[in-house]
Structures are given as C-alpha cells and as structure tokens.
C-alpha cells in the first residue's frame, strides 16, 4: 500500500531556501541536455528520464501494470473511447476505430499544429477539440479527470515509442518561444526552469532530487497528487514553487513550454502512464 504522502511541500520554498539554492555552484560542464538532432556522433546521451531519479519502490510501481494506479485512468479512457457522447451521436471509436492502431505514435508528436484551429495545441486540447467539434459535446475543462482518462488511454498506445516532435514552422516557433521561457528567470524567487533543471539537475531540493524535466511520462500518477495529472499541472506546480503567476492551462505559454520540453526530449522513449513522487 502506498502511504498517504505527507505532501511534499516541494517547491513551497521560502526565500531563504531559494537563496540557498542559488549559492550552489552550477557544475562546470553544464549538463549536455542535447536538443533534437544535437546528440550526434559518439557523444553519450546525458539525458535521463525522471524515472531514473526515483526510489526503487516508486520505479516498481511504474513498471508493474498490476500495481500502477495510473492504469485505472487508462482503463477509464478505454471505456470512454467507445461511449457515445454529444449531439452527433458519435463515440471516438466511430471515427478512429481501434485506438491500438489509430492512436499508435500519436502522443509522441504532440504538441502539434492543428490545421483546424490554426495553432499549436497539446494532446488534451486535440481530444477536447474532437469532443466539441466532432462529437458536438460540451468540452471538458483541461485537466478534468475524464479528459485525463482519454489522454492516458491515447498516450498508452505510444508507450515505449520514441518522442518525435513535430517540425513544421509553426510548431518550431512554439518550441523556440518555449525555449526562451525556459531560460528566463521568473517569479518572486527569480529562478528559471534552466537554473534548476539543467544547472542543478541531480542535486536535491528540500528532499527531492531535481530531475532534468523531461515530459516523457505524462499524463502520469503523482503520489503527491494521489491522482493522474497532465504535464501542464506539473508545470503549474513548478511555477507556483518559484512564486511566478502560473500560466493558464492551455495558454500559448504553457503549450510553448510543453513543445520545447518535447523537443529537448526528442528520441527518448514515452513512459506514460508513469509514476512520480
């Protein structure tokens, strides 16, 4: 049994702690978090999934489908897949038939450009778009449990496949915007994502190891949440932790950060549904 986690007050760091973080000397070699296409040649890939930073017991929870609580969300999504919803009398299966075939590899390329919406969207937004525009149903709020179920089920069809970020001009622009957000200091604590996830990755912060921020496990079951959540919920936690005004779910900034993280993780295997502390 999993003990009710006494809530990692993870990034609820006071300013005192933050300045302690800042006094760490960044490792001289500044981790080579290679972006897409950069890791060529004989270079060892220094990128590590958040999985590698977890305790063995949590790793087992992720690996074993009979214990992994996120599989309950996958099961929920599977049931919803063939459920008729909305004014048009259609289920996801009416158009996409068997998810095993039609959704294989789909999660590996999101966020992606939507020619219907004329902007870059993430997987939750694509599913919600189908729900509203194609099924004629009321869209879910982002991060709603039902939407997370569907997203988990879709992402599950790509488990083990390699992250393959889209490379059209609009998505690339979003990735670039995400990169500048990633490198920009923000919040009252005045830290950038890069400060923690590149320069201080592998160090500890209030009892947590700082991972490299690869998005390969999402949606995932976080013990601190006692539930499955999407990548943007995770980003929201980090933003609140540095006392920055969090971007809204589905906002251009959130999607841009997501697009950059996926690009940084190009070629790493998808783990969803993963487990994290």
């Amino acid at each position, binding site marked *: *049994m999993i003990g009710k986690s006494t809530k990692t007050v993870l990034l609820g760091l006071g300013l005192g702690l933050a300045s302690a973080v800042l006094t760490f000397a960044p490792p001289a070699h500044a981790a080579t978090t290679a972006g897409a296409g950069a890791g060529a040649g004989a270079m060892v890939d220094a990128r590590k999934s958040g999985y590698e930073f977890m305790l063995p017991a949590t790793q087992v929870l992720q690996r074993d489908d*009979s*214990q992994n*609580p996120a*599989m*309950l969300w996958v099961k929920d999504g599977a049931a919803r897949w063939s459920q008729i919803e909305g004014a048009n009398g259609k289920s996801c299966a009416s158009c996409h038939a068997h998810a095993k075939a039609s959704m294989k590899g789909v999660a590996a390329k999101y966020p992606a450009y939507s020619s219907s919406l004329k902007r870059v969207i993430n997987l939750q937004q694509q599913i919600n778009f189908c729900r509203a525009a194609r099924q004629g149903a009321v869209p879910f709020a982002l991060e709603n449990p039902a939407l997370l179920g569907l997203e988990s089920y879709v992402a599950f069809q790509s488990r083990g496949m390699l992250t393959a970020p889209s490379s059209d001009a609009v998505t690339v622009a979003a990735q670039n915007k995400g990169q500048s957000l990633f490198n920009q200091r923000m919040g009252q604590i005045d830290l950038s994502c890069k400060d923690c996830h590149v320069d201080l990755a592998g160090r500890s912060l209030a009892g947590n190891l700082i991972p490299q921020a690869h998005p390969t496990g999402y949606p995932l079951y976080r013990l601190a949440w*006692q539930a499955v959540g999407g990548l943007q919920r995770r980003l929201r936690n980090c933003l609140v932790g540095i006392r920055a005004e969090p971007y809204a779910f589905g906002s251009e900034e959130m999607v841009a950060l997501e697009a950059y993280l996926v690009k940084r993780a190009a070629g790493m295997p998808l783990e969803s549904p993963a487990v994290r502390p």
Partner: protein
Amino acid sequence: MAHTILTVPAVAKSGEIIELRALIQHPMETGYRRSSEGVMLPRDLIRSFTCRFLERGKSGEGELVFSATLHAAISANPFLSFHTTAYASGTFVLTWSGDNGFTQTERAHIAVR
C-alpha cells in the same frame, strides 16, 4: 462503478501458494481536509475489503480468504496484495464497501489442477 484492476492467476497447481492483487479507483477522502475554497471535504472512505473463495459446484458465500479494515491514512486508489493456497477450482469474490453506501464486488475464476 469504480474501475478495478485484479491480478489473479487463471490456473494453479493444487497446493500452490498464489498471490492476489486488487487495485481500485477511489478518492479515500479523509474527512480532515478542506477544499481550495476552504470548505470541509466530507469523509469518503472504503472501510472494508473482503476476499472469499467459492469452490466450483458449491453454494453459499464461500470461505473467507482475506479481509482488511481501511482507514483515513490509506492512500487514494488503494492497492492490496495477499497470498493464499490454491486447493480447488472456483471463484474469488472480492468486495469493497465504505462510506456513502459504496459497495463493489468483482469476481475472478481460477482452475486448479
């Protein structure tokens, strides 16, 4: 209906010690927390779990294999695993029950050779 994931071997040798696993989707709300709006969240717990074994061809509610009482300190989506000795073919009947009239029963069959 809550989603469940059961792991029970479909076949076993007579006398074999087998492991059963049961995972269920449930909030296990303690009754001690407030929502982000400051409102107390009412307690919503699974209070008990039982696993009984009903031998094939027999009637009644079967023999108790394992039971547990669950409390507020147990995580959401509780996972239970336990062992028993397989001695006959039949059905494991797993029942969770708790607050707000919650009750759910799942069955798993086993063939013992």
